[in-house]
């Protein structure tokens, strides 16, 4: 296989893994809260910011940073939930959509704007590099491979968490049947808070890796959330495998678009994919209902 195609594949897979990770966070937060968090992309952006500061200020490498960031953002996510999302969760069903969009979009705008106010210049990525690997005659960036492995490991840990721990099972229970979960005594509010914290942490992790590869500006949040939506629709809501696969498809599509048509056009890939899936198979590749 030609060299640049491999680079393309790796780049696409990597991007896809990052998307998939963050999109899964969005997916479980929606499953548990029944609110689509439009501010989700902001957690990625803030994660990137935090990673950058940690790297530049304290010399912390991205992988360590990713691990450290998780608890911090779990707390931030839980705070976000308690302040903004819990109060609207008892609104009547015909007010809930308006309220949730107002609150999450408003939060998103405020976060972006405030960040832009305090941070004038774009973050041009973390200059963290490792010596490249030579696999069967092809030069591959070991940094990228390592990130890919890390993300895979994270996905495995997540899957174990969801299947084996009490909280993980509680999350799945609420997602599948909210009323049933209530009846058997699952504490909805606290599980919701933890879920949201988890979702935020996943997005932030994704952000750490994102900034090692791309430039980050304060305004990437909202377009990213749209991309996560694309991943979730592609892969089906609530499915980890679906989010990963959806993310990979999107990542590859974007990488190919950027390669063949130029970077200007790559953001379109998400949308074209979204519209196509909606026309062909609205329930997504792994989902059960639209």
């Amino acid at each position: 296989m030609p060299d640049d195609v491999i680079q393309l594949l790796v780049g696409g897979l990597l991007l896809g893994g990052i998307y998939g990770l963050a999109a899964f966070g969005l997916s479980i937060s929606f499953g548990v809260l029944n609110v689509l968090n439009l501010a989700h992309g902001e957690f990625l952006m803030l994660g990137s910011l935090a990673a950058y500061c940690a790297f530049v200020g304290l010399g912390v490498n991205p992988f360590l940073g990713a691990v450290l960031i998780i608890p911090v953002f779990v707390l931030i996510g839980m705070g976000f939930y308690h302040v903004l999302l819990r109060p609207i969760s008892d609104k009547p069903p015909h007010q809930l959509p308006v309220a949730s969009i107002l609150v999450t979009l408003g939060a998103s705008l405020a976060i972006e704007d405030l960040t832009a106010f305090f941070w004038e210049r774009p973050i041009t990525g973390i200059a963290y590099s490792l010596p490249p690997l030579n696999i069967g005659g092809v030069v591959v960036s070991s940094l990228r491979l390592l990130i890919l492995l890390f993300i895979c490991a994270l996905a495995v840990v997540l899957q174990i968490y969801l299947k084996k721990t009490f909280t993980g099972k509680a999350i799945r229970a609420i997602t599948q049947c909210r009323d049933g979960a209530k009846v058997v005594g699952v504490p909805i509010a606290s599980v919701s808070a933890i879920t949201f914290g988890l979702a935020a942490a996943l997005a932030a992790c994704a952000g750490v890796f994102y900034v090692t590869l791309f430039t980050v500006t304060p305004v990437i949040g909202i377009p990213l959330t749209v991309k996560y939506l694309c991943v979730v629709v592609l892969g089906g809501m609530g499915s980890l495998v679906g989010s990963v696969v959806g993310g990979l498809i999107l990542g590859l599509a974007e990488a190919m678009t950027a390669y063949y048509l130029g970077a200007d056009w790559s953001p379109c890939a998400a949308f074209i994919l979204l519209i196509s899936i909606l026309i062909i198979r609205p329930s997504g590749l792994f989902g059960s209902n639209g």
Partner: protein
Amino acid sequence: MNKVQHSTAIYWSAALAVAILAVLPWLSVPYLLVWIFLLAVYLTLAVSYDIVGGYMGYMNLGHSVFFGLGAYTTAILLNEGVHPVLAFGSGVVVAACFGALVSLPIFRLRGAYFSLATFGLISLMGILANNLRNLTGGSGGISTPPGDHGTAAYYLSVVTAIATVFISRQLARSKFGLALFSIREDEEAARAFGTPTTMYKCLALVVSSVPASLIGGIYVWNVTYISPPAVFGLEIALSPIVMAMLGGTGTIAGPVIGVFFLTLVQEFLWTKMPYLHLTMYGIIMVLVGLFMPGGLVRTRLFRAIRERLGIGEKAGYQRGN
């Protein structure tokens, strides 16, 4: 005063307001004309948004796509020497066709999914506007033939705004409006009782696209220059929607009141603090979402005022119809 006398008082006040608006250009207050022009633009966008967002319950965050399409189409045609009226009309046709086409896939999404996807549509259009440089002038924007259209644009915009409010009101009292409300309340049940939901969703989107694209054309004709961020940006996308929600989505008066209220607040705040506009917007949105997602018109204070003045009709099917 009893209710009948109240109503006549309201109608006379409205007539007076219209008369003042009509003669304003002769009073040498150009700043006021510009201000009212912008108000009319926001009003048209907010009210037309609410047809799909409030009456039908599908929050189309991408509503300003029609505005941008109308503006760019008109600009391109004006540069080719096409007569303004024809240019405006073409903008409307393009936007309406776009609405009809996109309604097919996009209405398969519901709720926040729908909102996010339509919101993404704006970024897509923005990218297209940036990349199709030969057609749209790219990121540098597009200029149209200069000329002092201030007064004509003022009249056109005010008439468009008033007409849009009128259309919205008539819609709300008609069978069409009933269909939209039933879709909002319970789409599945609406279908079960005969409402052809697919058709009405498409129609509603197309109807909402008309005033938005028209005012987009008038806008570019007046300011003679637009660029992707101006017509496909966050500000023009969200302001009318926030105004409609703040005032009260799903009502006739709500978007109108929201536009006036927020524009005044903006005038006041923006001059005091030249930064962090979006943050203030965001905070307003959060507060409205947390404490009064129904908007101003559904607060007790407003209802009390309405009782006292004897005005205000509910958006609903009118018996006389």
